[in-house]
């Protein structure tokens, strides 16, 4: 499997040749298992394999979309990158260096470069802090600007995300969902990060507001040369923001490719099914042919043997039940399937 084709697709460290620049962020066989404790002694009995060996590279300046259904592990990956979860296996490399080996001081510095925008703009802002102090807090903690200049820096952040400057003295509850998400984005920008993990940044917002926030994210990316890991289940939003897209199913990557290519010619049956299930806002297309999956995804605590998708795959064969396909492909488009479409 370790060939140059795969390198294109996932850019894994182990297959990169010497002279190449390292991607900004790299996941190498990342794993996060949560123990399930049961019984009298509360001993771990089994584990939920939320993320089970994901290798993926995020290149400088790109927007990488990460899609999948609830419980597939996409948010866990985002949280592991910004340090909210400790991986149970594999490595996270930031600018080519394993973050596990970082000293305390270095880790602190790296944290400023990796920021996150959360899904729920209602619960991710402290209701007792004014917007001014919410935005000044990271500046103070990391000593980015001297104290007297903090207010001016906060004004600058508010300008950037399109909120009035007099928002400084107001509290989060005085803002609408879309405005709160702008505050969340401003806070992520405060430390001048290189990579922002956007975890479902628009799914809690109304349709007409979603477009505003998506446009803002796109503008900011250009203006500040940001790299995004854009996690979402809304395929339209992901398509709009992303240059490349990675599809996850039950803790594994099933397909990675350039956004346009992947949507036009999905290789993995799951990707195809996901695209087919997406309701298209055009009544003329309502009777189109599509793969309709049956049932729910199995539990990540007890994933099926072989290909994890075989229990719902319309094309599954005995081979799929026995052995697990590896991610392979060409031209930067790879899928983990024995019988790619």
């Amino acid at each position, binding site marked *: 499997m370790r060939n140059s084709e795969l390198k294109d697709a996932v850019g894994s460290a182990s297959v990169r040749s010497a002279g190449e620049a390292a991607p900004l962020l790299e996941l190498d066989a990342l794993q996060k298992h949560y123990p399930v404790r049961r019984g009298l002694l509360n001993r771990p009995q089994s584990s939920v394999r939320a993320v089970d060996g994901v290798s993926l590279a995020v290149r400088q300046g790109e927007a990488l979309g990460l899609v999948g259904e609830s419980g597939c592990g996409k948010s866990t990956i985002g949280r592991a990158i910004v340090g909210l979860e400790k991986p149970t296996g594999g490595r996270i490399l930031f600018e080519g260096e394993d973050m596990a080996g970082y000293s305390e001081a270095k880790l602190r510095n790296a944290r400023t470069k990796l920021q996150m925008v959360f899904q729920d703009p209602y619960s991710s802002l402290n209701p007792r802090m004014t917007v001014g102090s919410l935005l000044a807090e990271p500046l103070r903690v990391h000593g980015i600007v001297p104290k007297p200049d903090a207010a001016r820096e906060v004004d600058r952040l508010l300008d950037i995300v399109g909120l009035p400057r007099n928002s400084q003295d107001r509290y989060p509850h005085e803002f609408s969902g879309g405005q709160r998400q702008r505050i969340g984005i401003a806070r992520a920008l405060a430390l001048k990060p290189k990579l922002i993990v956007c975890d479902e940044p628009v799914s809690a917002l109304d349709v007409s507001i979603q477009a505003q926030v998506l*446009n803002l994210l796109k503008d900011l990316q250009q203006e500040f040369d940001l790299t995004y890991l854009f996690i979402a289940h809304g395929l339209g939003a992901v398509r709009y923001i992303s240059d490349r897209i990675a599809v996850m199913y039950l803790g594994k990557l099933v397909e990675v490719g350039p956004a346009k290519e992947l949507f036009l010619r999905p290789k993995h049956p799951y990707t195809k099914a996901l695209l087919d299930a997406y309701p298209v806002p055009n009544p003329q297309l309502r009777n189109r042919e599509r793969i309709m999956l049956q049932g729910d995804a199995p539990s990540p605590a007890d994933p099926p043997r072989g290909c994890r998708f075989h229990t719902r795959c319309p094309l599954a064969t005995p081979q799929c039940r026995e052995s697990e396909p590896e991610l392979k492909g060409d031209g930067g488009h790879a899928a983990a399937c024995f019988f790619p479409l």
Partner: protein
Amino acid sequence: MTSLLDVSHLRMAFDTDRGKVVSVEDVSFSLRPGETLAIVGESGCGKSVTALSIMRLLGKNSRCEGGEIQFEGTDLMSLSDADMREIRGNRISMIFQEPMTSLNPVFTIGYQLTETIRLHLNQNKKQARASAIEMLRKVGLPRPEAIMGEYPFALSGGMRQRVMIAMALACQPKVLIADEPTTALDVTVQAQIMSLMKGLCEESGTAIILITHDLGVVAEMADRVIVMYAGQVVEEADVFQLFENPQHPYTQGLLQSIPHLDGFEEEERLVSIPGSVPARYSQAEGCRFANRCSLASERCRTQPPYAYVEEGHAARCWEAEAASEEEEAYA
């Protein structure tokens, strides 16, 4: 065709700590037997309040300040509570967005399902159990007998919503009100639930009122569509008309702001509607969308009429009205 349910000039108000709030004003529509009518709009536009007032499920602080809701010739608003209970769950039933909170966690699925059936269809325990199992089979649940003894927590979101559908359709109602039935579900499960709902309702001739914010779902499911904004109906049309030729600037903005899957040119941006829904919109004079509308002009300070632009297609906008008058003059 005669209509099954007629809502005319409905006005619902709520008493709150900060005074009266009118959340739905002058909402009129009719539902024909067997059709799927979608009500679309953003949060707070009054779509759920409209649905809940049909079911008469709004709290004590709510008041109907005008209009009526005719169902098969009776005004639901004037019925006694006992008569309303006969209709609710039997002739008109409803499924909600969150299937976990609409099932009682301390009773088994079987208990909750047979309760509905025994209450409305006067069946004995044994018959009700058989009908319940039959319904669970119909909604595509595996091992229906075993699921009868399960508690809601043991089922996934998709399975719970199937149970809700089974419960709602058990009495073969004339109208099914589905309030964001798939919003909490994954897309692949959403597709299953939608086609299940559509199939079962076609089989039993049940009309659906589908409340949603997702225009994709509307395009897949609806026969006719009502678009609501700030407590009012701003446009009503056949689903094909609405997507091809939207008349109200709000509908146009909504349709343009959905990111589609076909792809984007390099520098292409999403069209977005600036600003947000005004708070306390009922006190505003004139068109409620005017402060976000790119076409707004002087005349928008007075309330535009809700006028038909073509057969079965109405909009609440001066622009749409002017366009249709020009067309008439031309003809």
